[in-house]
């Protein structure tokens, strides 16, 4: 009996010849696989960013309202006008506060999920963290408006437990409070923390999961009480996760323009200004300049984080 290893005659089919082309040529294979996403990223993503950047160097003619397509730094100068700079400062402060709060709230949750939860409990954890992301962002923000409203469940609960004076005291804090939580800066903060918390929990949990138990035991073995193990071992090893999470919470807060519109005072945040400038006001160059602000802030943020060694344990 003879064994036929290859077709006796003729060329192999096209599909096989295409396979032959990439097998053993890893560079060709990588190019074929990467070309579509690279084209998408290059044209649609980087391209639009470049267009944005270019717009920010134009200015608007104040009489005609038309864009003057000449290079100028005047639009950037406008960012430093007191009213505009105030918006930037308020947004950055809010983003920083939201990031800090998310980190503090997420840590114990992520720690529990990484070190103790197993099997079903772990599945339930993922579900609980992800579940809010399944429903519309708008619905959730409106839900919070109802929760925080003067007629809402928090006011009701405060009254039922006799905590109304406490709530009033909180609402009386200048700069944070207001007539009710739903129209206060504190309300905006609460909604932001709620919205972005999953984006902090998940990377933090992933980072903590990678810390072997033996490393924590080694720290205890070498004389460190739990507090110092946390300070010298857990925190530095969690830092890449905290950094990744904070990039989400920080940049998402910087760019959001819907939540503060629904829950909060009537003062603007960065995203809202971009929205208003490019829409109602039709000042595309100023909108573009405002959009560059979060990019620059995130760039600085990452530089500082790297300088502080946030990515050393990656």
């Amino acid at each position: 009996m003879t064994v036929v290893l290859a077709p006796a005659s003729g060329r192999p089919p096209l599909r096989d010849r295409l396979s032959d082309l990439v097998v053993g040529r890893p560079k060709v294979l990588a190019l074929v696989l990467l070309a579509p996403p690279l084209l998408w990223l290059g044209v649609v993503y980087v391209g639009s960013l470049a267009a944005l950047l270019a717009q920010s160097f134009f200015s608007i003619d104040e009489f005609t309202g038309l864009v003057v397509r000449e290079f100028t730094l005047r639009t950037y100068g406008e960012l430093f006008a007191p009213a505009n700079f105030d918006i930037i400062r308020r947004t950055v402060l809010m983003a920083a506060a939201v990031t800090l709060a998310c980190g503090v709230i997420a840590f114990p949750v992520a720690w529990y999920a990484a070190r103790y939860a197993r099997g079903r409990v772990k599945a339930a954890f993922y579900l609980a963290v992800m579940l809010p992301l399944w429903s519309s962002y708008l619905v959730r923000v409106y839900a919070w408006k109802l929760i925080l409203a003067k007629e809402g469940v928090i006011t009701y609960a405060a009254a039922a437990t006799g905590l109304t004076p406490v709530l009033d005291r909180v609402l009386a804090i200048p700069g944070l409070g207001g007539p009710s939580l739903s129209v206060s800066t504190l309300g905006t903060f609460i909604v932001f923390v709620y919205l972005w918390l999953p984006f902090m929990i998940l990377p933090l949990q992933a980072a903590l999961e990678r810390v072997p138990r033996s490393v924590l035991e080694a720290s205890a073995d070498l004389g460190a009480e739990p507090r110092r193990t946390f300070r010298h071992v857990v925190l530095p090893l969690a830092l890449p996760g905290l950094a990744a999470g904070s990039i989400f919470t920080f940049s998402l807060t910087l760019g959001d323009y819907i939540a503060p519109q629904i829950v909060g005072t009537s003062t603007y945040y960065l995203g809202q200004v971009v929205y208003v400038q490019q829409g109602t006001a039709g000042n595309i160059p100023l909108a573009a300049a405002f959009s560059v602000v979060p990019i620059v802030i995130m760039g600085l943020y990452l530089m500082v984080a790297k300088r502080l060694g946030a990515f050393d344990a990656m």
Partner: protein
Amino acid sequence: MRPLDHARLVAETASMTTAVRFSGVSRHFGPVKAVDDVDLEIQPGEFFAMLGPSGSGKTTCLRLIAGFEQPTAGAIEIFGRHVEGVPPYRRAVNTVFQDYALFPHMTVLDNVAYGLMIRGIARKERRALAEEMLALVRLPGYGYRRPAQLSGGQRQRVALARALVNEPKVLLLDEPLGALDLKLRGEMQTELKALQARLGITFVFVTHDQTEALAMADRVAVFNAGRVIQVGPPEEIYERPRTRFVADFVGGANVLEPDVAARLGLPRGPHALRAEKLRLVAAGDAPGGPFGTVIDADYQGATRRYRIAFEGSHLASVLPAGEAVFRVGDPVALAVPPGAATRLDG
């Protein structure tokens, strides 16, 4: 106190009676009796091995000494001090972990100096001590590398230095050589033994490798199913195993059931017989028997290993390669020299 004055430390501790004492110690995890009613005494300055298969309770015993586990019952003393309920960070013992557990975000030097930093020793002084320790484990000048840049053997030395720099009264080693290749393992065995002799610190060493335990330890405790089966010097464990388990686990001796033992001319009861003590003679040269049949023959360089079918059981015999050569199927006469077999308790 001079930080590395080990001689004085040893002199201090040697005057006390026992380094580690277990009295009726149990550690149960639900229905699982990981450690079950164990009594142990480890002497100061001793190189003590805890030997057993995985799941035999040896590692749990080590973790009980370190403080990572608390006993369900019984008492543990370290140099006369009761340590039940004492957390790991308040015990004068240090551990070399199986996976080394080096801190990945620190340099080698900071790893070694960690315990000193926790104790509040000034940066300059602790760095000098850590350097000194790195030199002791033959890694001078490696201080500014990261653990990830080191080989397995080097990491293990760092783990050793990190533990020893704290001058522990007892050093615990959890399968420290398990992750190393064969050649490196041999070198580290010699090195560890020399280091222990030089420092005089009590070493408690967990391993599942009987050759390692026999080669390194002053005394060996053989564990099985959460209990200590036999404790003694390596020679005693090897030459005079008390149970079938010890005979089989330590060096794979032939376990002779009473009827087989009787056919080989041994007294009543089960016996252990080392493979190298079972002599084989060509059937024609020993007409009296007893006879068996060679069913397997392996050439191993210096020796030849035979498997013999005898009275319904299989026996192993290891002979110097230069002696008479048998082939599979050859009838052979079996001879047990006087005193070669050990009576087993059960």
